[in-house]
């Protein structure tokens, strides 16, 4: 059992407020990812949970107990650092057993736990090496092993994969997901990479400038982003944004006119907007398709053929550039004129303040 509750958590350095009133619940055995651009306060928040950073205000509650004033070693947490922070003069075995040694755990038991962690992480052949003699991926696993050995209530990860190359990162993502299942542990993971967030999280917390923008499952964030920031941050290629004006409302949604005169109808709640209001249309690249009868017209600028997917960059007439993603390989060539259709169920409308109008058609996997 390990649950974490943050209540109006704040952090300021002098007059600079870095974390502003964050409320969050982390359930037992949940894999929670904090994601956001660099400098948004993810690491600071994680380090406050770890006890490495003073909490300026609010309550940090682990398993029902207020932990604000408990030292980092006594909170029952373990952290994996971005730089791995292995002790260079110690062997892998000593690195992993260090916490147990400080806690005066008997040698036999210590050895057993280290061996168990080494087995889980396939580190057995390297136990007597020093970190300097290992590759980045292996060091990463040692850092994780050091956390596992302590059998913590909650694992904390601060951008653990950002020093690895792309192939290894993909591999470690899978390994971490496997580990989460095998250890049955609560994990909090910080990253600026939305792909890591999408692939590993049970729950994603999107942060910006010390404020939570949205909390939800990966698919909730993807299909029903709460605002322009989340919509733009989650998903690759990025969501296309088109400026427009509301021209009609009824119980089934609203229609938006774009500068080119094209009209798009979307099924969203209309309670907070009126006719003539400026809105932003958000269309995922896969919500657009090549369609000779479609409402949007433009010229192809660039085609990226990924084999299984094709990304077509289109400059719309007067409405701005968009990216269209279609399945399979496609023969569309640059400079060609095309027309684009819109899948209304996958489109978003954001009001003048950037807030999303709730969709009337919820994606089936986001309930």
């Amino acid at each position: 059992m390990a649950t974490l509750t943050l209540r109006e958590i704040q952090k300021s350095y002098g007059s600079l407020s870095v974390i502003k009133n964050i409320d969050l619940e982390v359930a037992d055995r949940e894999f929670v990812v904090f994601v956001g651009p660099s400098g948004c306060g993810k690491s600071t928040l994680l380090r406050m949970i770890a006890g490495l950073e003073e909490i300026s205000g609010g309550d940090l509650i682990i398993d029902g107990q207020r932990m604000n004033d408990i030292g980092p070693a006594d909170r029952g947490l373990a952290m994996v650092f971005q730089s791995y922070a292995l002790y260079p003069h110690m062997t892998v075995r000593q690195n992993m057993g260090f916490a147990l040694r400080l806690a005066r755990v008997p040698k036999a038991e210590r050895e057993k736990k280290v061996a168990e962690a080494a087995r889980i992480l396939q580190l057995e052949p390297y136990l007597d090496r020093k970190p300097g003699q290992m590759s980045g991926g292996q060091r990463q696993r040692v850092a994780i092993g050091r956390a596992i050995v302590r059998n913590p209530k909650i694992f904390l990860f601060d951008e653990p994969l950002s020093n690895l190359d792309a192939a290894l990162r993909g591999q470690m993502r899978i390994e971490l997901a496997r580990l989460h299942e095998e250890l049955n542990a609560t994990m909090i993971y910080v990253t600026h990479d939305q792909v890591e967030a999408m692939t590993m999280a049970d729950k994603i917390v999107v942060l910006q400038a010390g404020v939570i923008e949205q909390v939800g499952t990966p698919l909730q964030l993807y299909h029903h982003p709460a605002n322009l920031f989340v919509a733009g941050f989650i998903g690759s290629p990025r969501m296309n944004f088109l400026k427009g004006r509301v021209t009609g409302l009824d119980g089934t949604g609203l229609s938006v006119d774009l500068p080119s005169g094209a009209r798009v109808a979307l099924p969203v709640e209309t309670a907070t907007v009126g006719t003539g209001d400026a809105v932003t249309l958000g269309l995922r690249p896969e919500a657009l398709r090549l369609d000779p009868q479609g409402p949007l017209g433009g010229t192809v600028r660039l085609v990226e053929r990924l084999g299984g997917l094709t990304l077509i960059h289109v400059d719309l007439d007067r409405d701005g550039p968009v990216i269209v993603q279609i399945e399979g390989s496609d023969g569309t060539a640059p400079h060609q004129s095309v027309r684009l259709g819109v899948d209304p169920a996958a489109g978003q409308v954001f009001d003048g303040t950037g807030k999303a109008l709730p969709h009337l058609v919820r994606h089936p996997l986001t309930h």
Partner: protein
Amino acid sequence: MTLRGHGALFWRVAAISVVVEFTKPKRQARKPGTLILVAPSVAVLLLWMIVPLVMTLWFSFQYYNLLNPAGAGFAGIDNYRFLITDPDFWASLGNTLILLGSVLAITVVFGTLLAVLYDQPFPGRNIARLLVVAPFFVMPTVSALIWKNLMMHPIYGVLGFLARSVGLEPVDWFAEYPMASVILILSWEWLPFALLILLTAVQSLDHEQREAARMDGAGPIAQFFHITLPHLGRAISVVVMIETIFLLTVFAEIFVTTSGGPGNATTNLAFLIYARALIQFDVGGASAGGVIAILLANIVAFFLVRTIARRLEV
């Protein structure tokens, strides 16, 4: 003074070559034809070392006393025999090692503690750092004079004044504790050096490592012994090596304060050689002392370079 110069010169060359050896990225095979380009500097360095060395060796086998020109001639190993049977020589050898060992121990231990202390944030840290490093820039002769006349003099010195102001008898430091006084002065001179090197090393410690240790349950003391101290190993080796080079040949501080006395209480090998050559004018005996100094330097160098090389490998 050229006689006692060999030891120091040897040392410097040894130190430089060790540093060069371990700081260059990877040993590369020398391209053919470059030998001729490095030959002149190698030749000059070789002459620079070989000529005084050979002359010292030569003189050490001669009867050569400036006060007794008539007695000149080949001496065989008489100079060495005379030196080895001279209790002053063994005393000076002992003094050299005591001086070396104590100053090394004091500067490394206190240098490490102070480095950790000065790494902590506290108000006025930058000024404090500047002040603590300052003694290193004072000339040896000057600092010896300051300590002798301004600090430790029983009548005019600050320490004497303090003692009198609380009603105690002032201590005549150089008469009563001559060796301790010299060690004190040398430590004062070399502590800033050790601190400077060790402070930069402490500052280069990855702060995430320290945080990882904190999460692993290491308090300040455990962090010091398990994280900071191992990290400083390399820097401590460098401090020991460089200080050894200079401490084996300490001269100015002794010359200015005690002149090797009282008796031979503070005569180290360098001062003994000086006394032989320029007080007793026995060039032959002094040269024999010089040769032994070179041997001593090389024995210490051998062990030092070996242990340090192992340290630097990691």
